[in-house]
């Protein structure tokens, strides 16, 4: 805590050198304004382009202090970052909503969410998810629903999330159909999601004989995916091929790895953020 600014403390975040953590305390009233300003000028130098304010111990934000925070936010925005608020009490959050300040400041539920959002939205970092599950059809709906929700959470639109859900469903169904059903022979789905694309790898352990069937199917798969009236199944990977930006399958004696890349819709049509 700074002696001259008892309501504010600014520290570094070791894993994010360009981000500072601002701990605010107690009542932020008119008397706090100059201290907040002084502390920011002294400790949040130009190497910091983003600030996360920990509001968990703040009991009141007067309009003068809110105006000061807005001014500080503007400085960070000019540096290509932002001042975001985290871990507010419900009572304080309600006051922010009433004042309309929630439309100006990004408010995160906790510090971890604020840091994750920075890594995702500003640094455009990639996130990795790995799921391992038994080779059973009944588990696939939960897997595809989970991935769809992740995509929505990551800012992919409803249509893209639906397409990715379909891709996950089809490649996982395929992994179940052509894979071993032995107790410990799980299917592994790896998801690598970033700002502009998602990469999916579905890997199974081969069931002897079925790998050859899949290899033949992949070799014969043409761009024309049209289904026939007397065909009950077998169009899954062809559908994936049409929905995805890239589809590759590596069939070996040990197992099958299906790799899919799907660009975000804006990227496909050349619209950048």
């Amino acid at each position, binding site marked *: 805590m700074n002696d001259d600014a008892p309501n504010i403390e600014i520290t570094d975040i070791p894993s994010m050198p360009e981000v500072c953590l601002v701990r605010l305390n107690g009542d932020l009233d008119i008397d706090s304004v100059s201290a907040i300003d002084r502390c920011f000028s002294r400790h949040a130098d130009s190497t910091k382009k983003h600030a996360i304010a920990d509001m968990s111990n703040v009991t009141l934000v007067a309009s003068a202090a809110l105006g000061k925070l807005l001014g500080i936010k503007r400085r960070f925005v000019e540096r290509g970052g932002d001042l975001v608020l985290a871990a507010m009490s419900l009572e304080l959050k309600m006051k922010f909503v009433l004042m309309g300040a929630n439309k100006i400041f990004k408010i995160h539920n906790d510090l971890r969410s604020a840091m994750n959002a920075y890594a995702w939205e500003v640094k455009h970092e990639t996130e990795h998810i790995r799921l391992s599950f038994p080779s059973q059809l009944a*588990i696939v709906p939960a897997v595809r629903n989970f991935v769809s929700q992740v995509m929505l959470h990551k800012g992919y639109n409803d*249509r893209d999330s639906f397409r990715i859900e379909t891709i996950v469903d*089809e490649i996982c*169904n395929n992994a179940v159909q052509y894979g071993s059903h032995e107790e410990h022979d799980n299917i592994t789905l790896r998801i690598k999601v970033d700002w502009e694309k998602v990469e999916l790898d579905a890997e199974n352990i081969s069931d002897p004989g079925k790998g050859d069937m899949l290899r033949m199917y992949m070799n014969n798969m043409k761009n024309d*995916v049209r*289904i026939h009236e*007397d065909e*009950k199944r*077998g169009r899954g990977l062809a559908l994936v091929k049409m929905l995805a930006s890239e589809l590759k399958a590596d069939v070996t004696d040990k197992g099958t790895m299906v790799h899919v890349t799907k660009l975000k819709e804006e990227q496909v049509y050349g619209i950048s953020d």
Partner: protein
Amino acid sequence: MESQIELKCEGMKGRSDAQVIRFVGDLDATNVQTVLEKICNLFNEGKIHIVADFAKLRYVNSTGLGILLHLSKSAKEKAGSFKIANVNENVFEIVEIIGATSLLEIYDTVEEAQASLN
């Protein structure tokens, strides 16, 4: 656990050989057999004209589409029909990509599908 799908069946005024079936939920590999059996039972009861209302069908995959085509073919073989209405945008895209729009009878509304029976 299989995906949730509910089929709500309603009769059609003046048509003892027809039913409206409202699909609610997701149609995929985990529940196609249940759907197939339920509709085949209706065919066997003489309900050979089916209007499937997809207004609340959120999701369908390639296996689900395969079953819909199979039902359409079965209905035709019994001199009946299998018509689909109210398909949402996401589901319609899958139907279109897989080339099923030319194989399935698709209508904008249940009323239009019903009117086509007369």
